[in-house]
């Protein structure tokens, strides 16, 4: 249920810019991350990884390693035979490979030893006999009919047998939509894979309290303590009530710590086996193999437009290179088709998507999960359409914007939408009209928009339970403690929680204690993914706080003889609104409430409204609200070298309401940064299926020297279902920046690079093509043949007036 909050106006701490409650612990080195944990008798765990891309395991001999003094435990796949995976439909992973390895870096064995040197020596002494199989290194390889099956439990013949998931959907009469068009356009795009590169290498510590109590504790740098808890119970065959998962503050996630991982499971198993604590910390190279990053996606966009620039039809086709395992892939494939429709009024829409397995580190969710690739394609495509129609790219967008409070053609419920305002702001602030098409050769501006979820509308495993719950306890000294399983991954969830509670109770964020992300101590939150925490945990916290406030107000009312409805809480006092002199300070109010309404413990919960569309795949895309962003990039592109220097970025984001302005602006600028890295140079490159650049130096990411000035503008649409009106900001602002860069390059030098990253060599090549009178473009020329099958035809939604039903 949506939680309504009041007062929405005149907040005391919501909307402020207080330093985050964890800021000073982080700046003094006090924050304890997973690798900072040291327990007595702790062993060092290490993973042996496959040196082959695709191979059968014929045998593993651990006898020499076992004999090494200081080695306390060794595991191979046979010790952990139960399959798992983050999604119920993709239970295709083993903690350690059984029978075959699927990529270079796939874990094969694990050791726990007295120190790192001994553990490494033990890995060298493990003998594994492999029989290499032909590797599948690309989407094109995966479409070949004669290469060995990667998932040997699956059966299939010919083209399509490496398919992990496919979906084909048609909304409305797409052929009719194209028939109504005056112009039809088609483009191909490719988005290369890239990775999160969190500064913190994944780490996990496990400790086992022996039987008869038999309790396992796992500390991990995970974004999803709840899903890790479930996975450990399944794979270790331990009752969930014997397992405690504590997510430590995550030193960078971006989606990369959202799957259960081998090192977490092996730490737990080795702790139960040895009776000693075991810690695994991945090396930087291993972090590249753990991956779960951005899918490489090949895309085809077709649209129909009338002469005046009105969209009549859109058809989107995607092929995702999934890497070696399922991970979030079944959702990822649908995400490549889900959110094109929440920015524009798309009257008829067809989506065809397929994800194939390849022998590469597994892909998964990275900031924007499955939506940055199609957003790049769509926004570049629209830039080309605008050029062809002779319409300004901004005006083309404005002509086709979705209306607030309407259903998209694929049944997504759009409520607040500040996209028009966002566009108008960046248009005016950047001086777009004086710049676009008018700057000297080599200099250009580019524009694009985007939208993202405020939390996935459905949990990862089907259930009807709440998605987030928060408890509040008030002690007799007036101390308030908030309990939530939400884990702060740097996005500021800790501060968000204490801020909304402080607002409701009339306190300051620093007055509130927080216990977070501990499955023994805190009630459920599904995790820090899909930009769900502010909306879901925030709403649960507001509800718990309001219930606590009700208890305190009732007691104060009885004590002072002031009606409850006249009471207010602010600045550490409960008082009569009409006569603020009548009241008492918070500790005194708590004293009264402790007598009249004990116990001072309350709870709140949040569950999304029922939003899923009436079709298979309709669970991907629904969200209780959508954030919106518009961005303009100005850059210089050297036509000699192809080097692009981004000089300034204007970005406006519909946040609903900023709970903390500094945190929100930090998420916007951080998203711009990550987008620029992806747009210009971040990529995973492979040579014959081996990752070429598994190091920070070779995987180039932007430094201080490449990062331009960013001008951030926040648009507050006051979402009626968000906590204090808030929506998401962690992911959405990344989306428009990548295509805005590509469009600015076109404006600067008149060539299209329809492929990310836009490295200098591609720009130069496109300029050479242009000079030779060829198509001034670099990008994919065809998609492999694949039968997506007959589409599931879905009737358009009944456009009853959402505005009448829902708008405030």
């Amino acid at each position, binding site marked *: 249920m949506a939680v309504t909050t009041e007062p929405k106006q005149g907040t005391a701490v919501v909307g402020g810019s207080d330093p985050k409650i964890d800021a000073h612990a*982080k*700046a003094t080195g006090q924050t304890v991350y997973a690798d900072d944990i*040291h327990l007595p008798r702790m062993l060092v765990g290490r993973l042996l990884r496959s040196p082959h891309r695709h191979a059968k395991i014929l045998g593993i001999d651990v006898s020499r390693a076992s004999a090494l003094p200081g080695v306390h435990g060794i595991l191979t796949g046979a010790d952990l035979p139960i399959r798992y995976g983050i999604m119920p439909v993709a239970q295709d992973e083993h903690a350690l490979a059984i029978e075959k390895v699927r990529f270079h870096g796939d874990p094969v064995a694990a050791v726990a030893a007295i120190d790192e040197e001994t553990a490494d020596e033990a890995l060298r002494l493990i003998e594994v006999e492999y029989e290499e199989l032909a590797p599948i290194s690309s989407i094109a390889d995966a479409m070949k009919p004669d290469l060995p099956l990667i998932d040997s439990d699956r059966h299939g013949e010919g083209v399509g047998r490496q398919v992990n998931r496919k979906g084909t959907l048609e909304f409305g009469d797409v052929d009719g939509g194209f028939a109504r068009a005056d112009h039809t356009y088609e483009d191909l795009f490719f988005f290369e894979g890239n990775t999160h590169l969190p500064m913190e290498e994944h780490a996990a510590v496990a400790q086992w309290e022996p039987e008869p109590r038999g309790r396992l504790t796992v500390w991990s740098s995970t974004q999803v303590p709840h899903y890790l808890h479930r996975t450990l119970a399944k794979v270790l065959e331990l009752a969930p009530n014997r397992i405690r998962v504590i997510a430590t503050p995550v*030193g960078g996630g971006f989606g990369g710590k959202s799957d259960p991982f081998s090192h977490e499971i092996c730490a737990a198993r080795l702790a139960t086996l040895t009776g000693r604590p075991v810690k695994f910390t991945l090396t930087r190279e291993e972090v590249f193999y753990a991956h779960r990053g951005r899918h490489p996606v090949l895309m085809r966009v077709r649209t129909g437009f009338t002469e005046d620039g009105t969209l009549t039809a859109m058809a989107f086709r995607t092929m995702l290179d999934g890497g070696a395992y399922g991970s979030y892939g079944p959702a990822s494939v649908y995400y490549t088709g889900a959110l094109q429709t929440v920015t524009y009024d798309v009257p008829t829409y067809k989506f065809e998507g397929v994800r194939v397995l390849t022998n590469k580190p597994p892909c998964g969710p990275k900031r924007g999960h499955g939506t940055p690739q199609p957003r790049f394609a769509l926004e570049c495509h629209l830039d080309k359409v605008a050029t062809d129609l002779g319409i300004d790219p901004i005006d083309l967008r404005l002509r086709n914007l979705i209306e607030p409070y309407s259903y998209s053609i694929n049944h997504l419920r759009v409520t607040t939408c500040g996209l028009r305002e966002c566009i108008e702001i960046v248009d005016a602030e950047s001086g777009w009209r004086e710049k676009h098409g008018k700057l000297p050769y080599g200099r250009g501006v580019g524009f694009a928009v985007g939208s993202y979820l405020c939390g996935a509308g459905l949990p990862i495993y089907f259930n009807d339970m709440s998605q987030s719950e928060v408890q509040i306890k008030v002690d007799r000294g007036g101390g308030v403690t908030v309990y939530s399983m939400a884990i702060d991954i740097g996005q500021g969830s800790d501060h968000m929680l204490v801020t909304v509670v402080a607002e409701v109770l009339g306190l300051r964020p620093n007055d509130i204690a927080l216990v977070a992300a501990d499955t023994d101590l805190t009630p459920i939150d599904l995790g820090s993914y899909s930009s769900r925490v502010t909306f879901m945990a925030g709403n649960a916290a507001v509800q718990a706080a309001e219930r606590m406030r009700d208890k305190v107000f009732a007691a104060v009312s009885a004590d002072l003889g002031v009606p409850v409805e006249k009471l207010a809480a602010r600045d550490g006092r409960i008082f009569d609104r009409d006569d603020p002199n009548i009241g008492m300070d918070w500790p005194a109010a708590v004293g009264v409430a402790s007598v009249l309404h004990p116990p001072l413990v309350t709870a709140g919960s949040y569950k999304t409204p029922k939003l899923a569309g009436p079709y298979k795949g309709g669970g991907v895309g629904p969200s209780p609200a959508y954030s919106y962003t518009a961005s303009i990039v100005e850059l210089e592109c050297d036509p000699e070298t192809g080097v692009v220097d981004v000089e300034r970025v204007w970005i406006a984001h519909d946040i609903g309401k900023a709970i903390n302005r*500094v945190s929100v602006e930090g998420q916007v*600028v951080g998203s711009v940064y990550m987008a620029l890295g992806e747009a210009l140079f971040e990529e995973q490159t492979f040579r014959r299926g081996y990752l070429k650049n598994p190091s920070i130096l070779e995987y180039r990411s932007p*430094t201080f020297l490449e990062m331009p000035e960013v001008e951030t503008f926040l648009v507050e649409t006051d979402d009626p279902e968000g906590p204090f009106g808030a929506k998401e900001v962690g992911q959405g602002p990344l989306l428009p920046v990548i295509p805005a860069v590509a469009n600015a390059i076109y404006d600067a030098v008149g060539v299209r690079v329809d492929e990310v990253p836009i490295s200098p060599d591609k720009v130069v090549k496109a300029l050479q093509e242009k000079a030779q009178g060829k198509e001034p473009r670099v990008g994919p020329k065809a998609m492999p043949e694949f039968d997506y099958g007959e589409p599931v035809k879905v009737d358009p939604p009944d456009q009853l007036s959402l505005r009448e039903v829902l708008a405030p």
Partner: protein
Amino acid sequence: MAVKSTSRQLVALNINGDAYELAVVPSHTLLEVLREDAGLTGTKHGCEQGECGLCTVLIDGRPQFSCLTLAIEAEGAEIRTVEGLATNGELHPLQQAWGETGASQCGYCTPGMLMSAQALLERNPSPNRTEIREALAGNLCRCTGYQAIIEAVELAAERMRSAA
């Protein structure tokens, strides 16, 4: 064949003004010794190859990658880590400014970034934006987009100048 990983030698280190006498593995880096032997886990690691800047500490006032420095090389030097920035329980102006501008998100790059910033301000109390960017370019951050960090260094520099 057991590895002689535990043959240790005594080393005297001056860390944040405190004298430590530690039995360390000679092949261990200052990073490892700080975190594992001295218990100073404030200093982080992100690559152990001198590529990310997370492990930056000050050695005789110069920012150095502690992952590329052997602990035994640092004997006799004045080593400063993030734990030594605050004095008498009061935040250093950089730490204060860090919170105000939102220069830490996940916070994992923060300790190393702070030490590089401190080294900069010690040699140049009034850096311009270009000088800040150049001085910190060896420290990576994946969260902030660097803007809040630059603002924090400017804010702290201004306050330190007016307090001086």
